[in-house]
């Protein structure tokens, strides 16, 4: 029963067809509280489509979606905002919900863009805008976060920090995260469950299970599997507070 209660969104054999072409089909997955589910797959494999199915953006779908929460934060992959709108970062933070000023400041601080609060949204760089998008999604303290390539255009150090932030948010807010990422390394280290897509579900399971899967290897190449071996290797020791390395 407890697993039933912690379910936030559940896709049952879901699929979506556009102009008689399946964008994705037969996807089953569950996002639970405090868990990170990551979608990986090549371009056009239906990752964003799957996210939009989970969010209820697509209506006429095959299969079914059960959504158990309305507190959703979404970072879309592509966002085209019409700059005929005079819109500051601050206004954008209040777009879908009235949030207290402290919560806005806190979120902007966490993603490192508090200094942009009163800037016009149209004047931000790609990476800055991406940080604002993440801040907006987390400031609502959502139960379900859907992040579609959330760190695109962010510089390398920022990328690592943001992924750490995402992991921390999933722990502190106990929210479920559906993450789409190209960065296999991140996927393999910070994810509870991986779904590998290629128009359908190729394989899914824990990061280790997926990395060992043959279909995954053909999709991403042998090298992608190596990432995991690095990851496994990393975990045969732990770091103490003082930075010493202790073997397990």
């Amino acid at each position, binding site marked *: 029963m407890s697993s039933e209660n912690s379910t936030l969104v559940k896709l049952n054999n879901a699929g979506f067809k556009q102009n008689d072409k399946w964008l994705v089909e037969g996807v089953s997955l569950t996002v639970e509280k405090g868990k990170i589910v990551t979608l990986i797959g090549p371009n056009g494999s239906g990752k964003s489509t799957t996210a939009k199915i989970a969010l209820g953006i697509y209506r006429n779908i095959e299969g079914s979606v059960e959504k158990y929460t309305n507190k959703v934060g979404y970072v*879309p992959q592509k966002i085209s905002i019409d700059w005929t709108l*005079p819109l500051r970062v601050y206004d954008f933070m209040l*777009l*879908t919900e009235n949030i207290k000023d402290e919560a806005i400041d806190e979120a902007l601080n966490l993603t490192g863009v508090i200094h942009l609060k009163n800037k016009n949204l149209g004047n931000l760089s790609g990476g800055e805008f991406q940080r604002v998008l993440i801040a907006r999604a987390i400031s609502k303290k959502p139960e379900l976060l859907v992040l579609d390539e959330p760190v695109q255009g962010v510089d390398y150090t920022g990328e690592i920090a943001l992924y750490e932030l995402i992991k921390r948010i999933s722990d502190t807010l106990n929210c479920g995260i559906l993450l789409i990422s190209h960065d296999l390394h991140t996927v393999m280290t910070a994810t509870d469950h991986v779904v590998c897509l290629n128009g359908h579900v190729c394989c899914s399971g824990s990061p280790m299970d997926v990395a060992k899967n043959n279909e995954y290897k053909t999709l991403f190449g042998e090298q992608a599997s190596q990432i995991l071996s690095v990851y496994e290797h990393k975990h045969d020791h732990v770091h103490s507070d003082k930075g010493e390395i202790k073997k397990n």
Partner: protein
Amino acid sequence: MFDDFFIRALIAGLGIALVTGPLGCFVVWRRLSYFGDTLAHSALLGVTLAYSFELNIALSVFIISSLIALILIQLQKKTNLPGDALLGLLAHSSLAVGLVVIGFLTFIRFDIMGLLFGDILAVTTDDLLIIWTGGAVILLVLKLIWKPLFASTVNYELAEAEGLNPDRAKAIFTILMAAVIAISIKMVGLLLITGMLIIPAAMARNISDSPQKMVLFSIIGGLLSVLLGLFSSLEFNTSSGPSIIMASLILFILSLLNIKQSIKLKN
């Protein structure tokens, strides 16, 4: 100078400006100026029907404009024609049908110029009641749907994903557009209503850095346009619609100067 009709026109005009201000911002943001035009053109048909069946003009215009909006939505779903072609089709065919019907109504003397360009002499006390109560309802409804409407104007998928029901907000907004045209047709005239929606909002865009400010300046711009326009209409004996629109154009030009000045100041 302050004849009764003029006071009525003033009260009517200011009431209209209060409503067209915020609605006009959405027309600019959502790129709906041709949609507004189409609804306004179809209003002529509404007016002729009002005369034929002795209905209230505002009510009849509201019904016809809403109907045209519904037809447009259906045509968009069922044909592959681009949106602007459909808008043109509906705008001109409804205008044509309206004009033909007027031709048949030989027993009524029509003031076509008044219909097209507005007539301050035509505003009655009943019209004031319709404008102010109708306007209050429009503003109230707009306030209620503001969040989903604005969010989906910025980004439809964000609004949809985060549970704001943007489709419903859009449908309600369409009805509000029909309503604002219905209450302002007598004053501004059907050819110029869209100008009343767009020009103050466009002026406001030039001097605003947030959506709230743009709405506020758009309202202020509309009120000033009505005041300036109506006084000059009285002074020079011109139609009320063109006079109001010209006043708003002047404000728009001033707002452009303001931009240049502020750029100079920054340098």
